[in-house]
């Protein structure tokens, strides 16, 4: 049996990696908080399965947290900011620049706007060449003359815009001293706020030869309340959009911004509205793929869309009775309602004995070579696209299912099993894990498409890891999707339910591990594979056994599964 060897590799890797700080933040993402080492339920202690409901319940109390808190924990590299928090930050930055540079807050705000809201860039530039900075952003040293004119209230002044005469108390100017009446000023400002979009933040004196900046102090004293509100919204938008460290959450109705300070090329972030996206390219999360390849893949999908349209159809004929079957569950294990034939949705092969169908088999027919290659290239693309797309849909379905389960079934379950809803957190976690893994699996197929054909060892390793991950995921998905249903209408806390919990928790952890292994291997370009072959893969085949229940690979020295506690059946039989 092939599997065991790499699984042990997987374990080694996970253990090794959890020592380094860098991994903490990334690992968390995949296992959805399960590997939080302070959470004793999910330590792979040998004895944790033993203590039944009592201890587990107590532990579940501890885990009972908002999903938001979970998110907070697992995303140390990013911070979700509300509009209020953003305004506070902006004010702090302005205050800091104002005090360091000894300029007014309005001037500080103008400076920051011109330097992408970076406090350090502003002060660097300022202390390098103050007058150049003043020239660039339009901050003049106040002219004494203009103030003199304005203070003389009896003087009559002609406005440079409307040409009307005004007493000097109705006349205003920026630091440059160009005089215009208050009415013209306010129309000038209002015109800019309503026509120039964010350009109004860079408003200058109306005199064409002058570029004195118009600051928020003038806006506040001359614009209508409505315009002041718009201006301040533009200012906040600029604070987020021009700032290199913040971005708005791309979800349509979401008002949060995400501040990101991570490195390492891992950009997955999740907003407080639960939208996950890649901070770098603003597409949805796509680990283990890099942004550039994702862009290529997405554009390929749109250009190939005509060729693969049929794949998008939701129906396939049952391979046995040929009646059309619509897939309405998330997992790939299909059962025909008519003939009860069980098969895999992806390869249409029988489910019994179904191992993996993730591997792309190249055809060896000897047709006209060019024709064959063209056909194969489409076939190859179709193979990967179909799986990418199926997992994508499965992910969306799982997300919706999770919501429905939380909204509807927890109540029922709580009644039938007489357990508080809070104790079903493990079901939620399993669903979140499914969603996360479907997402990773989705992108692993795009990754597979771009894997060079001339590196068979890498390809083999990749397909191996992917196959393993995929088959545990199918088990987990099936378990949380179908097995849960059994308990909905059955009264009483059955022993079976606690068995179900044990199994589900175990599967969740194991699946998380498999995917972490897969994702990390893909992210480092499958560099574990030595170019000479897959020797490493086959060495330790004999040293492990795969748990029948949760598929966890255990060292052969242990008789009961480390994760779910099942006995090694082969061993028992001996």
């Amino acid at each position, binding site marked *: 049996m092939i599997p065991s060897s790499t699984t042990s590799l997987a374990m080694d890797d996970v253990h090794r990696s959890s020592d380094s700080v860098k991994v903490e933040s990334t690992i968390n993402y995949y296992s959805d908080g399960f590997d939080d080492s302070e959470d004793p339920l999910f330590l792979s202690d040998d004895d944790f399965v033993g203590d039944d409901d009592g201890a587990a319940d107590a532990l579940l109390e501890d885990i009972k947290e908002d999903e938001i808190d979970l998110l907070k924990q697992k995303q140390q590299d990013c911070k979700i900011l509300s509009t209020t928090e953003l305004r506070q930050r902006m004010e702090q930055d302005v205050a800091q620049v104002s005090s360091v540079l000894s300029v007014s807050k309005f001037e500080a705000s103008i400076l920051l706007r011109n330097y992408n809201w970076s406090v350090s860039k502003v002060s660097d530039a300022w202390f390098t060449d103050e007058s150049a900075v003043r020239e660039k952003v339009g901050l003049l040293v106040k002219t004494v003359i203009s103030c003199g004119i304005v203070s003389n209230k009896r003087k009559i002044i002609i406005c*440079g*815009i*409307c*040409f009307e005469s005004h007493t000097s108390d109705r006349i205003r100017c920026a630091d440059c001293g160009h005089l215009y009446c208050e009415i013209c000023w306010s129309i000038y400002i209002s015109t800019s706020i309503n026509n120039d979009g964010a350009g109004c933040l860079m408003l200058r004196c*109306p005199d*064409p030869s002058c570029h004195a900046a118009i600051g928020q102090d003038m806006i506040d004293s001359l614009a209508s309340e409505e315009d002041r509100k718009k201006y301040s919204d533009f200012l906040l938008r600029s604070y987020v959009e021009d700032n290199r460290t913040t971005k708005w959450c791309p979800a349509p109705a979401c008002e949060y911004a995400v501040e990101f300070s991570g490195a390492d090329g891992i950009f997955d972030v999740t907003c407080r509205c639960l939208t996950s996206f890649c901070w770098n390219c603003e597409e949805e999360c796509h680990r283990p793929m890099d942004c550039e390849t994702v862009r290529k893949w997405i554009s390929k999908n749109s250009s190939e869309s005509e060729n693969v349209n049929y794949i998008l159809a939701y129906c396939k004929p049952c391979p046995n009775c040929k009646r059309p079957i619509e897939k309405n569950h998330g997992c790939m294990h299909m059962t025909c309602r008519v003939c009860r034939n069980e098969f895999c949705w992806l390869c249409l092969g029988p489910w019994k004995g179904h191992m993996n169908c993730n591997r792309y088999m190249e055809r060896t027919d000897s047709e006209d070579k060019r024709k064959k290659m063209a056909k194969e290239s489409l076939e190859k693309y179709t193979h990967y696209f179909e799986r990418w797309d199926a997992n994508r849909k499965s992910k969306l379905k799982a997300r919706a299912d999770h919501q429905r389960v939380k909204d509807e079934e927890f109540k029922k379950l709580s009644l039938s099993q007489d357990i508080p809803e809070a104790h079903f957190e493990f079901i939620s976690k399993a669903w979140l894990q499914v969603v996360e893994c479907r997402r990773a699996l989705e992108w692993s197929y795009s990754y597979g498409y771009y894997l060079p054909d001339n590196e068979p060892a890498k390809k083999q390793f990749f397909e191996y890891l992917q196959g393993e991950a995929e088959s545990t995921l199918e088990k987990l998905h099936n378990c949380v999707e179908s097995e849960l249903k059994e308990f909905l209408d059955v009264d009483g806390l059955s022993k079976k339910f606690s068995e179900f919990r044990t199994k589900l928790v175990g599967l969740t952890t194991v699946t998380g591990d498999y995917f972490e292994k897969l994702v990390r291997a893909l992210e480092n370009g499958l560099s574990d594979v030595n170019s000479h072959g897959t020797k490493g893969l086959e060495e330790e085949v004999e040293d492990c056994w795969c748990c029948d229940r949760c598929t966890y690979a255990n060292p052969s020295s242990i008789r009961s599964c480390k994760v779910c506690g099942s006995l090694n059946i082969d061993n028992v039989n001996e």
Partner: protein
Amino acid sequence: MANSNLPRRIIKETQRLLSEPAPGISASPSEDNMRYFNVMILGPTQSPYEGLGSWRSPSTSSCGVVETGGVFKLELFLPEEYPMAAPKVRFLTKIYHPNIDKLGRICLDILKDKWSPALQIRTVLLSIQALLSAPNPDDPLSENIAKHWKTKEAEAVETAKEWTRLYASGA
């Protein structure tokens, strides 16, 4: 009447345009619409748009007296938002220029995003006159003319002179 409530600024600008016209430029409001001006600009000397004969300093009277060419008719309109929005101007005389299209529309920054309420009709017309002296084929409105200008400038200038002779004779 359409001209009631004409802003003081427009009245003052008009008075000054009529009493102290800029050299080579005349602008007079139409009788039934004080926001609509008939404009004439003389092609600047040393440009392909100058009159071909020798001509004296232009008359200040609104009817052009230079008959030897280089007289360009334009129309100008002050929209309701003026002076917060730029005036609208276009050539009525056909002209071969990279920043002016077949319909006489002009590509000039101060008529678009660089407009400022402190600018005036006079400054706009002077800028258009200056544009005739200094075509800018890098920011074209007519792609073909701009390309012509960039690849074979001498030939393009000849075409511009020819067009001036054909269409801008002031007759």
